């Protein structure tokens, strides 16, 4: 009786997958039809904004932040749903169709929650920390080219800018860990900084490989020079190990399992954001997912040809690649156990750094030849 209940061998699973595939196909079809839409009707508005650079930038920033906020809500839902399915659960089901609106409900709940600051916390630091994490996460997105036209700030040193800005997030995490005056938070914050700074090195070296190959630091240029052949296809011997190293570093940079030590819930309760509640916690969360999007997008740009792809419009290709990489990150996260801090450090310094150095030398040699 109950065994039947727990393992009903019905067709509902297959049906759900089928529905998912159909919906995905419809979305893709709609996206591929977007170039046919009457975009020229928007030209007056564009012209209006182009004439006023300040207003233009402001509008871009507002658009970017709100786009990220919405995307984060969607990503959180997706991750929860994905994790649920992976674990033979259903995931959120209550709010909206299949729980689509769950994260909206959570966001509203977090907004309405009491904002608790521990009595012994370093209050200015505690208040400031979420923004120190949030702002760099948003700034890095600024230089990401979503499509040939859609880029916040087409900086000719984009790669450098993105890397250097993303590192400053460590400051905010350390501030959060220290400011909360909680021993677990301090341990989490210290781990976060140590991890972020160590993994930055192989990451930069791999980015340098791509920069050397493409002879430019502008992210837009890097993508444009991959037209026709993605990096990973054009230089497989260099770029496949490179992509693997970059992916490991990316996991560490966004504190995802197996490198989620700063917030390892089984050891450090919740690491640096143990004491945070309400909106401040939500900001950390959004920053984390923004970082996710950034690293995935960055990887898509460096190795998988950014917006390039047949049929679909560029923005769709870029989003698709980013989403697939995020999906991969989630998959890894929900499968692998967590490393220990010293094991993780030795993995970085004893394996990734030498490997990326060798890779960089090989790249340099291949370019010189």
């Amino acid at each position, binding site marked *: 009786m109950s065994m039947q209940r727990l393992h009903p061998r019905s067709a509902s699973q297959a049906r759900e997958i089928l529905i998912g595939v159909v919906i995905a196909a419809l979305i893709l079809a709609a996206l591929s039809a977007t170039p046919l839409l009457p975009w020229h009707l928007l030209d007056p508005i564009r012209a209006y904004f182009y004439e006023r650079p300040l207003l233009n930038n402001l509008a871009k920033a507002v658009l970017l932040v709100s786009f990220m906020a919405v995307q984060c809500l969607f990503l959180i839902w997706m991750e929860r749903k994905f994790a649920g399915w992976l*674990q033979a659960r259903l995931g959120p089901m209550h709010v909206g169709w299949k729980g689509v609106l769950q994260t909206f409900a959570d966001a509203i709940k977090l907004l309405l929650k009491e904002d608790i600051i521990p009595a012994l916390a370093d209050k200015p630091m505690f208040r400031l920390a979420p923004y120190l994490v949030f702002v760099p996460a948003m700034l890095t997105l600024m230089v990401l080219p979503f499509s040939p036209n859609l880029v916040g700030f087409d900086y000719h040193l984009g790669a450098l800018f993105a890397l250097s800005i993303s590192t400053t997030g460590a400051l905010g995490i350390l501030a959060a860990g220290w400011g909360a005056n909680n021993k677990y938070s301090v341990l989490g914050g210290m781990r976060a900084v140590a991890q972020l700074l160590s993994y930055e090195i192989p990451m930069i070296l791999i980015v340098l490989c791509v920069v050397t190959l493409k002879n430019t630091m502008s992210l837009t240029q890097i993508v444009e020079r991959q037209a026709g052949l993605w990096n990973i296809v054009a230089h497989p011997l260099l770029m496949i190990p490179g992509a693997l190293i970059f992916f490991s570093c990316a996991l560490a940079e966004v504190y995802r399992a197996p490198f989620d*030590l700063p917030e390892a819930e*089984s*050891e450090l309760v919740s690491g640096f954001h143990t004491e945070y509640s309400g909106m401040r916690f939500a900001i950390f969360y959004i920053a984390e997912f923004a970082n996710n999007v950034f690293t995935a997008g960055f990887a898509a740009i460096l190795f998988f040809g950014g917006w390039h792809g047949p049929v679909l419009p560029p923005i769709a290709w870029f989003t698709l690649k980013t989403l697939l990489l995020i999906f991969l990150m989630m998959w890894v996260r929900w*499968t692998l*156990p*967590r*490393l*220990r801090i010293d094991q993780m450090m030795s993995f970085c310094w004893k394996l990734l750094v030498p490997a990326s150095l060798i890779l960089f030398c090989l790249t340099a040699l291949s370019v010189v030849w």
Partner: protein
Amino acid sequence: MTLTTTEITSPGMTLNMGPQHPSTHGVLRLVVELDGEIIQSCRPVIGYLHRGLEKMMEARPYRHNVPFTDRLDYLASLNSNLAIAQAIERIGNVTVPERGQYLRVLLCEINRLASHLVFLGTFATDLGATTVFLYSFRERERILDLLEAMTGARLTYNWIRAGGVPTDLPEGFGERLTAFLDEFQFALDEYDRLLTGNRIFRARCEGIGVISREMAVAYGASGPVARGSGIAYDIRKVAPYDVYDRMEFDVPVYTEGDCMARYRVRVEEMRQSARIIRQCLREMPEGETMAKLPKIFKPPPGEAYSRTESPRGELSCYLSSDGSMNPTRVHFRAPSFFHLGLLPAMLPGVKVADVIAILGSLDTVLGEVDR
């Protein structure tokens, strides 16, 4: 300029792990002195779950005490029932009918499967692999369904009594159990693929929390902890009770003494339990399941103890009687109590993250530690 370590000393940090901490599996508190992330010393503080069960039992007739044992080791409460039931039978000279003995072995082994599945899930979660937790609980849920069909309860069964087992198996139980065991083999292989070979899992477990053979003996470790340290000490083999002497099963022993060895012992034990369950189903004779105890049960003055192998180790119950309705002293030898006693000796020198791994691999249940 040379810097020696004496010039740059900093005071250690005292970290209070628990009683509210996600990985202490209940209400254990570890006061650890840290140097960076390395443990200098550790003092476990227990007793947050102390309910005075042993004292309560002194004020109640023997038979009324069996349900309280459900609250000792709540993950394997049938095994706790068995410990006190055997002690009562010894003190009152009661013989359990053969079918009752088979049923007891069957139920205890099913419960052992459930308990080890919880270990598997929580241990993996402690190491960060949250998915295994849900997989193992999926299987455990089916075991609980089976036990619910047999006993009517899902956690606090109270179905092994002094004298036997109150009811026979329900209709179709054997088929359902066999069907489950067939699928369970595949599930175990799946966990094996997911965890045992995993490089990160191995890095977190191999060589961590080593308990040497001598240490395990001196500290009174038993069950999978002792067997992970190379001691083939299984009460089911060294002092067989019920019908365990008729069962064919192996006692897995690993000599490394680390977390990995304890994990492997438990996984292997699950396979052996499945073997025992199949034998029980096959060989169980027909007949009575419960011996009749007198309505007013007054054992002769004296003392008795039972030795049983619970999923956590040697669980024994000590009873003393003065000839009246109530026992004068009830005492449980809780295996987890001894295993937690190992912590102050094991932890110095390991990292914070290893504390969690070690604690998880000991698989303690605070209900039986604090009693």
